[in-house]
């Protein structure tokens, strides 16, 4: 078990080194360095930007993110159940189906409330 996660850890490390090396090679050694304020200004089709970039989020995005969190967390609970599927009896499966139906009820509630409506 430890060995497997060592492998994963090494993989993540290598995943950082492999793209990191060409990026550093490009930005530190090979690429030209002729900066000027106009070149470094944010691109907006040639017009100078007005105001702050980091504007307020539209509230709609939060709602979708919230619905997503609900679904994600609930689904994670189903994965261990799926692994133990051979050991559970039929009535337990029915219980899980009821669990999923409650989840679907949440979706229908959000739907009827108009949370899934893009405005």
């Amino acid at each position: 078990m430890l060995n497997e996660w060592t492998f994963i850890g090494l993989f993540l490390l290598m995943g950082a080194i492999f793209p990191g090396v060409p990026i550093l090679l490009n930005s530190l050694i090979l690429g030209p360095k002729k900066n000027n304020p106009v070149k470094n200004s944010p691109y907006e089709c040639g017009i100078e930007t007005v105001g702050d970039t980091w504007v307020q989020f539209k509230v709609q995005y939060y709602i979708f993110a919230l619905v997503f969190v609900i679904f994600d967390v609930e689904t994670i609970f189903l994965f261990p159940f799926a692994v133990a599927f051979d050991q559970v009896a039929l009535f337990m499966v029915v219980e899980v189906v009821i669990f999923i139906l409650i989840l679907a009820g949440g979706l229908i509630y959000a739907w009827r409330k108009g949370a899934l409506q893009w405005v």
Partner: protein
Amino acid sequence: MDLSQLFSDPVGFVRDLLVQLLASLGLADSAINVILAAIGVVIIASFCLVLPLFLIWFERRVVARMQDRIGPNRVGPQGALQTIADAIKLLIKEDITPIGADKLVYNAAPILSVIAVISMWAVVPFAVNILGTRLNVGALYIISVGSLGTLAIMMGGWSSNNKYALLGAFRTVAQLVSYEAPLLLSLLVPVILARSMDLGTIIEKQEVWFIVAAPVAALIFFATSVAEVGRTPFDLLEAESEIVAGFHIEYTGMKFGMFFVAEFLHAFTVGALTAVLFLGGWRGPGAEAYPLLGVLYFMFKAFAGYFLVILMRAALPRIRIDHMLDLNWKFLVPVSLAAIVLTLLGDKLIQTAGLESEWLRAGLLFLGNLVLVWVVYWFLSASARRMRAEEEGADDHASPGHDDHGASHEAHAVLPGDAGAHAAPAH
């Protein structure tokens, strides 16, 4: 040292050789293990980074053929070295960080996006004993590192100090985060069928490919994975005609290149994962005895999936953002929930009835899926009819989008019972 092992277990053969070599150097066992793991990591990671060089050329050629062009054909045989020339060009480009950008986040984003895609390959089995490592939570691992890619795109868009990039990041939240829900739900179906999250076990259990027992889940998995990559028809986060280039608008040189590599590798990973989860992975005649043959089968299936992704990119127009979200939350999520319920109940009932044959189980579940498709079709056409009647009642103008095709798109927006709450969109 048995040479026949070279064919039956090539990785084990090489590993044995290396262990003997390292042990003769007098290294401790744990050090040998770490070195072997490092070698494996380097091999798989380099495979993952060299593969896009080929994929980009392949995709450009195929898309060109679809658009009645020739595509790159000058550098190398059939233009196969074009991507290497492009990579060299990107290496000698100037690296620009826009004024006011959040430097740390800005520079970390392209690296993170590559990490997210490459790490998925750590658990993908190429053949019966050719694989990075076996995780007993492989399916969850793939989803969790895959969602790092979403984070990378969000980081890149947010930190660029550019409004187009920020719009791209906003859309990322709406799209990638939303599509993760049906992705996770449809991934649950093969896990139920195999009773394991380990990708190796999932393949071993596929005496009958899971696409037979779960065609609906397979389709949903494929479609949502394409949306996760941000490919056409779901390329809203980098829609070049709307927000120029979206989240990577300010990136130049190799940082842009890394986003590019990550996207193409991810598109191929979609094909590979579909092959592993639904098409039997390395399974094929003679694959267990000769793992190298299994690698061939696996790559063939993965490329078939990837080819489909390319065809979708070349053939389909971009989907509108409200349609995209409706398609996800009002169509894919309910249908995948229904597919899970169907698989759960169906599989358990078949097991309780004592029908042990794999083919019988797959056939019965396939019939169940057909019923599901029919019910969904009935729902869609009923709601499409209702919507059309509503719109014709509300105003008489007949817009050209309202032929059958347009109606089926609209149908995703409304299911029966929703007529009151859902106002018809103004055209």
